């Protein structure tokens, strides 16, 4: 039984993806990741010595993520007041967790690696786009990673499992929306967050859908990295 999504996509079809690495020369690493109309920009600063000293970990580096929406990037007329909110703090923490699963910070004792994420334009999937951009920025900064990280929102629309929800789809009554981050090669989950009600078996179907999406995201991420580092004369 086929059904059409509001924007005509197939259930397992992602919105148009785009990524660019190294867009902030002054940062140690940087990237832009676009999922449909959601655009995230990430900058990495570090490793550098962590102050105050009591926060230092003498065995490894510490990852610190800061997520924020640009004041004009929300939908409707409302301006998002700059500064941390409960929502942005929560997203910062889950982003840290999502990325930490993949990072090897053992070389960076007592240091901090800051990842700053700003959303330029939003249409759902903001924390996911942020994580995709952050993973690229960390790779661009040369921070050792055991795996790349991809993230996507999956869920149910009128009971059908779908991938990469738009805001319209999120807002539909009875919609289920899961933000999922996975390590790209192993497909292990590094973030799962859910809004809505769902049966266990359906949940598994939905998560399986995420795996396919992460593969497609990986292709875009790899292309972006090779574009910057391929240099002229390669391919």
């Amino acid at each position, binding site marked *: 039984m086929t059904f059409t999504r509001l924007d005509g996509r197939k259930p397992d079809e992602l919105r148009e993806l785009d990524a660019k690495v190294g867009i902030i020369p002054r940062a140690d690493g940087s990237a832009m990741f676009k999922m449909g109309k959601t655009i995230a920009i990430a900058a990495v600063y570090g490793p550098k010595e962590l102050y105050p000293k009591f926060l230092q970990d003498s065995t490894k580096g510490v990852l610190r993520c800061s997520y*924020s929406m640009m004041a*004009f*990037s929300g*939908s409707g007329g409302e*301006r998002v007041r700059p500064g941390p909110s409960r929502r942005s703090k929560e997203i910062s923490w889950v982003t840290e967790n999502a990325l930490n699963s993949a990072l090897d910070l053992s070389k960076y004792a007592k240091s901090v690696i800051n990842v700053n994420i*700003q959303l330029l334009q939003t249409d759902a999937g903001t924390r996911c786009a942020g994580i995709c951009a952050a993973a690229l920025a960390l790779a661009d900064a040369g921070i050792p990673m055991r795996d790349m990280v991809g993230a996507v929102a999956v869920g149910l629309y009128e009971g059908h499992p779908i991938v990469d929800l738009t805001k319209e789809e999120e807002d539909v009554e009875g919609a289920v929306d899961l933000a999922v981050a996975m390590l790209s090669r192993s497909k292990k989950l590094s973030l799962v967050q859910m809004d809505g009600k769902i049966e266990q078996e359906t949940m598994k179907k939905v998560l399986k859908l995420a795996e396919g999406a992460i593969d497609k995201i990986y292709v875009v991420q790899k292309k972006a990295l090779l574009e910057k580092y391929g240099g002229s004369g390669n391919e």
Partner: protein
Amino acid sequence: MGVVAMNKIMNNYIKTLAKNNERMDGRKLDEFRKEIKIEYGVSAKSAAGSAKVTIGDTVVVAGIKLTIGSPFTDTPEEGALMVNVELSPPLASPDFESGPPDSYSIELARLTDRAVRESGMIDVKKLCIKEGETIWMVNIDIYPINDGGNLFDACGLVAIAAILDTRLPTLKQVEEKYEADYDNMTEERLPINEIPINLTIGKLGEHLVVDPTYEEEKAFDARLTVCITEDGQICSLQKGKDAPLTIEDLDAIISLAKSKAGKLRELFGGRQ
């Protein structure tokens, strides 16, 4: 990672070159970087107006939200304008820290605000919906993306571009109250009187320098930001950094700014 901003060696290098009328990248002292680009609508889905400005490798974006509010009591028939520059969480430079606005971000915001406000760029009387009760509020938020030097001028240009890009939402009247319908944007633009241009000129020893790179900015002894209106008047002036300026210096800087403003204004050419 990376050594914190170069001081002695680069400061000396830049100052020594300036004595010979030379600059690190081969430009003349009064020359802007060649690569100046303005892009409109970079956050078209979310913002009423938005833009991105690139000068060399300096990149800034700005977006505008239009909201309906009450006028200030002393200007009951005028719309409101607010300009903010956000450096947190920092994208553009290792010099910026997360946290509440610091003096630099406030200075950038105030200079850009003054340029737009004091020039009368936006006809704020036309932003009045109902005198004494309801007006449009124009909220401009500027985000530096990469600091390659001269954020002052880049912020000025991006604010102008975002204003020019802005379209108004449909205005609906529901009983006594006015509401904006953001799902139905009109083609109506903000009412514009003119295009002001902010120019920041620095002093290196005895020499005046236009459009500094990141390192050149740090080497400046003093700087002056001047805003020039279309008819050549000065609508905003601010001196920064420690070294004093003579009145002759000021005069020379203003003349230089006036000579450069026209060319920058041309960047907004076919936008009206």
